């Protein structure tokens, strides 16, 4: 069974540009979560999507946005990139109510570097 897949693996952008990261959840999972893992800051919750709707949002500015498609895949968009956006972006998926069981399945991440 295929796990959570993320693309691209690495992405290099310059300040002010936009970045788009993509995530395909495990088949049967309807919830997708995005986390930012910046050096020294641990994992910070960004967004949670379920059934195509944004269910919760972390403490990030509006230039971080995303969406979930009918096939439950998701993309994360970061506009007006800043140097501090450089981080590993992790996507996770779960069955509905996944957070009630804690069973999140993570992808290997997309590393974004902003120059």
């Amino acid at each position, binding site marked *: 069974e295929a796990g*959570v897949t993320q693309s691209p693996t690495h992405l290099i952008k310059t300040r002010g540009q936009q970045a788009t990261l993509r995530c395909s959840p495990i088949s049967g999972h309807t919830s997708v*979560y995005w*986390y930012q893992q910046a050096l020294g*800051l*641990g*994992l*910070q*919750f960004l967004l*949670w999507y379920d059934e195509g709707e944004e*269910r*919760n949002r972390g403490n990030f500015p509006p230039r971080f946005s995303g969406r979930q498609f009918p096939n439950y895949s998701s993309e994360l968009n970061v506009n007006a990139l800043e140097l501090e956006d450089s981080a590993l972006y*992790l996507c*996770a998926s779960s069955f509905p109510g996944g*957070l*009630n*069981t*804690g*069973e*999140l*399945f*993570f*992808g*290997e*991440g997309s590393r974004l570097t902003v120059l």
Partner: protein
Amino acid sequence: AQSVTQLDSHVSVSEGTPVLLRCNYSSSYSPSLFWYVQHPNKGLQLLLKYTSAATLVKGINGFEAEFKKSETSFHLTKPSAHMSDAAEYFCVVSDVNNNNDMRFGAGTRLTVKP
């Protein structure tokens, strides 16, 4: 809001010796608690979880954790470390009464010396 504190940013043990990774939590409600492991250049994997059942929770790879409400702790232990245990470990608290808000600790890097 709930939060979690991992008391050690780095723990170093010798192979074959016990492992103790410490985690304290804060939650207004009865929390769900988890430990995840992240090997280098990999995503996170669930090690074990506590969801108000038995207070001693057994996970994969010989790890276990004990929920102690009086101490607001959920420490991760393993009797004998293996080289393959070297990784980053995250303690996580989830509050299902708060829109499933899930908070990760800052992580503890475990080094295992031969």
